[in-house]
């Protein structure tokens, strides 16, 4: 099974995935990235008005092929 890496950028910090995971294919890797978004947001709701989490998926050779972005907006009305 191919190895995929999931780098996370929370707007303040870029975290390079050093371990990765073995998944069936790009479709499975895309799914893994998408379902991780609520987890990222759950613990790390920032203090501010706008925030973006970005998960970028790369293959073992470093090729990025997918990106998921979750954005947070908050404002007084």
């Amino acid at each position: 099974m191919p190895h995929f890496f999931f780098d996370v950028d929370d707007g303040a910090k870029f975290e390079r995935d050093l371990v990765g995971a073995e998944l069936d294919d790009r479709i499975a890797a895309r799914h893994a990235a998408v379902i991780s978004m609520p987890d990222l947001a759950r613990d790390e709701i920032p203090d501010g008005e706008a925030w973006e989490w970005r998960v970028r998926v790369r293959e073992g050779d470093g090729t990025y092929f997918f990106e998921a972005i979750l954005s947070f907006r908050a404002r007084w009305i």
Partner: protein
Amino acid sequence: MNRPIAPSSSTRIRAHPLTRRNVPEVGAMRLDEPEHSATERRSIIMKSIGHSGGNPAILKLNQAGTLEERDLSKLSAITCTSYLIDGKRDIIQQGEPPKDVHLMMSGLACRYKMLPDGSRSIMALLVPGDFCDLHVAILGHMDHGIGTLAPSRVVDIPREIIDDLTSNEPRITRTLWWATLVDEAILREWLVSMGRRRAMERVAHLLCELEVRLKTVHLSEGGSFELPINQETLADMLGMSLVHVNRMLQKLSKDRLISISGKTVTIHDRAALWDFAGFDPGYLHLSRHSLAALVDVGCVAEASA
């Protein structure tokens, strides 16, 4: 018991019952020497039976603190015949009528349920010494499955043996109840983790618990233990996505709280990890002796006092 007696040390126990009149020598110590307290005698007997690492069922049940020599040899006889089952196999499936009680002697298993979308939720981990389904025979069928996560040794204890123990062996029965209650306590803690702990605390809490449970059955040494599961399984256990579990493990490693090498997890600073996870081993209801052993190897006494 209507089954062959394995050519293990338990055969010797049958030939030479562990009475105070006829006791094996362990090193230079004799069990009948008056300077040994009851606890020390139990500990000497436990070292003399079972395989090198000790019989995990006895090591675990002895945490309840009420077993005597007769109980230990009885438990040893019951658990002498185990069989090997590969990893990722069902010990019993959801819907099956439970017959035997399964006891883990080595390896790792879990209780799980499959969801309609094909995903799996793991509600409990079963380590050596854990009974898979002690009282479930009262119910007509399994409402969840039990499967191995790694190659495991399992003992099938026929229902009649459990019935005999509960009718005739009050001290063993008490320890079996203790084990059942501790299982429930672990499940309560699992629920707290799922519902309220942040992801990194949740991962850390699980590692804290596993280290203590494995240490009780002599399978963790110096903060290191084997965790032969992949990230996907860990994600099913923690109710988290694989990507997030992966990320949390890397953060814990980066903070030098743990390290992972292959299938070996090492806790570097137990006190710090306990503190970070909000882990208090009280819910495992261990013996004073076991708690003291945790303190001896460098964790904070206050956390478990």
